[in-house]
């Protein structure tokens, strides 16, 4: 088996002391972030991007992904114990998880969430190992027109998952594309929109944009309205499951994993979406749907498995096609490009240690998380009590130093502040930052493939419609747009996001 020998190689890479250490550190930081109020995973990953520049690419990515799925776990702990979803994909977990906790079954809820996530995480990771290479194989036959259409699809996918108006989300994509053109044009060597400023010769660094847009603007929002912290310490109860609970939870976790694995692949990624979808499915499948909302264990197991599976499988489009589905994945792409690695089908051939090492580390990381979360749950609950006023200066300070460390330039620090204010104001106007960052990251790729495709076709735009794969991708993108405007879908989507808020 090819996959098995590759996985064995991956474990070899992942088990080096350094990689193991940073996987642990990432998982730990992720859990911390998931638990602490007022800092989300995207902000944290952007804060830590500069640090990973010092590490080797494999180690850096292992740590970043550890933060990502660690936050997924940490978020559910607080959702269950204090009814505060640490981040948006654990909103659903809070519904039944917190009811279980109130009933004195917090231990069981935590175990179900952790084991469901572990199961889903391992399955999701194996799916990457099996389907990643297949998809990469397909992507090899992609020419410039196909890539262009794929990027268009990926960008429009981010609209579906953005809150609020689709019109604004598309405008944010376009603005991101524009800002992405700042710097030297690779083709002609002309400098674009740099205003003669030498700091802009290479354009804005991804970490600058991300730290401003996610880190600083989040901080400004929290200053205006401090995050909720109604902590009630509760007895957790025994960390075990009865046989009956296990029998109820296991099928739900399997269904959740299936749903999450599929939705995670979609452009736009689907950790949040899949947890809602899984909850809806569980409600429908259950013999007695009235128990939901009153502490149904299936309502914890399904969504928890779903969001974790989706978190893993959303790595597939990023690793194999180079198309990030979410802002987190966009940051991972940024981390790779800093090391001159172009994510895409070539990665498995040119950087096998990166691909397989990352996959193996995810399995290890998921195991670490169960160990970190279950026995240490008391510690995490105590951390919840740290007031935001103490976190705020630390966050701003580390952001500022991190920004400065990128290129020893104070320009980066001020530029990120500018992006922060922009992000804060525009978010208050109902525009999400995620489509912007995807546009920013994918802009150069989009332009390059547009240029190549049109050069090959002698300037004839019909090339995008006459090649079947490209046409198919564009039709899919058009369908997404139509869906967004369709009134019935719009209503459903708004309802989901209102619940998520």
């Amino acid at each position: 088996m090819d996959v098995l020998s590759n996985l064995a190689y991956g474990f070899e890479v992942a088990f080096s002391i350094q990689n193991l250490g940073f996987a642990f550190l990432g998982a730990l930081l992720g859990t911390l972030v998931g638990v602490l109020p007022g800092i989300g995973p995207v902000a944290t990953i952007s804060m830590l991007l500069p640090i990973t520049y010092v590490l080797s690419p494999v180690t850096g990515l292992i740590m970043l992904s550890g933060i990502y799925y660690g936050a997924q776990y940490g978020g559910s702990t607080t959702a269950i114990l204090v009814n505060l979803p640490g981040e948006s994909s654990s909103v659903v977990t809070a519904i039944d998880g917190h009811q279980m906790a109130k009933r004195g079954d917090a231990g069981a809820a935590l175990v179900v969430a952790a084991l469901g996530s572990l199961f889903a995480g391992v399955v999701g990771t194996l799916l990457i190992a099996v389907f990643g290479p297949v998809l990469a194989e397909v992507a090899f036959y992609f020419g410039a027109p196909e890539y262009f259409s794929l990027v268009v699809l990926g960008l429009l996918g981010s609209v579906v998952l953005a809150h609020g108006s689709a019109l604004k989300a598309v405008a944010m994509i376009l603005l991101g594309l524009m800002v992405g053109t700042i710097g030297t044009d690779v083709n002609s060597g002309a400098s674009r929109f740099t205003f003669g400023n030498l700091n802009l010769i290479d354009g804005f660094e991804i970490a600058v944009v991300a730290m401003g847009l996610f880190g600083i603007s989040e901080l400004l929002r929290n200053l205006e309205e401090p995050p909720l912290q109604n902590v009630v310490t509760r007895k957790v109860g025994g960390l075990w499951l009865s046989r009956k609970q296990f029998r109820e939870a296991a099928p739900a976790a399997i269904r959740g994993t299936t749903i999450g694995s599929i939705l995670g692949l979609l452009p736009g990624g689907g950790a949040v979406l899949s947890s809602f979808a899984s909850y809806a499915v569980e409600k429908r499948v259950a013999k007695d749907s009235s128990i939901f909302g009153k502490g149904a264990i299936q309502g914890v197991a399904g969504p928890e498995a779903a969001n974790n599976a989706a978190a893993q499988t959303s790595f597939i489009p990023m690793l194999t096609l180079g198309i990030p589905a979410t802002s987190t994945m966009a940051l991972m792409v940024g981390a790779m490009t800093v090391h001159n690695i172009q994510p895409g089908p070539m990665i498995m051939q040119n950087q096998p240690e990166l691909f397989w090492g990352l996959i193996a580390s995810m399995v290890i990381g998921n195991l670490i998380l169960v160990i970190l979360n279950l026995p240490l749950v008391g510690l995490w609950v105590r951390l919840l009590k740290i007031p935001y006023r103490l976190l705020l200066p630390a966050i701003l300070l580390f952001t500022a130093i991190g920004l400065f460390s990128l290129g020893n330039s104070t320009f980066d620090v001020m530029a990120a502040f500018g992006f922060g204010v922009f992000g804060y104001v525009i978010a208050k106007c109902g525009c999400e930052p995620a489509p912007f960052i995807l546009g920013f990251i994918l802009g150069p790729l989009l332009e390059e493939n547009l240029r190549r495709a049109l050069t090959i076709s002698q300037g004839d735009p019909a090339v995008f419609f006459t090649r079947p794969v490209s046409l198919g991708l564009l039709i899919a993108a058009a369908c997404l747009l139509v869906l967004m405007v369709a009134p019935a879908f719009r209503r459903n989507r708004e309802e989901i996001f209102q619940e998520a808020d």
Partner: protein
Amino acid sequence: MRLIRNKDVISGAVFAIAAIAFMIQSRTLTFGSPMEMGPAFFPRVVGGMLLVLAIAILAKGVTEELREPTEPLRLHVLPIFKVFVAVVVFVLALRPLGLILASALLVAIVGSAPKDRRWPEVAISAVVLSVLSGFLFVHALGLQAPLMPWR
């Protein structure tokens, strides 16, 4: 007056200004043809699309606002200003005063921003965080910055 504080109007205007600014700036660059795209081709096409959307968003804001008033945009300027001052002071102090003092200043300024601040806490975190960041970033991570005014 009501119109200026409508969220759609503001975001539409922001998009429109950005699109127009990019379009004006791209005048000096060559546009080329689809077959041989110049550096201005992509930005101008994208900018044009952005401008259309911006006008649509703006128009939507105006018509909706005229039909019935919506919740206006409220910005809290003071917190933004405090963070701005903290960042500027940090940036200016970094080279002459060194990382530790600059960090302490940043923490002290931004620590005064939350409504529920407590001064002893601000003082303690200024000391702890600045020393910690000095050791962490300069010693452990090899950041190229002076630690103190004299070195």
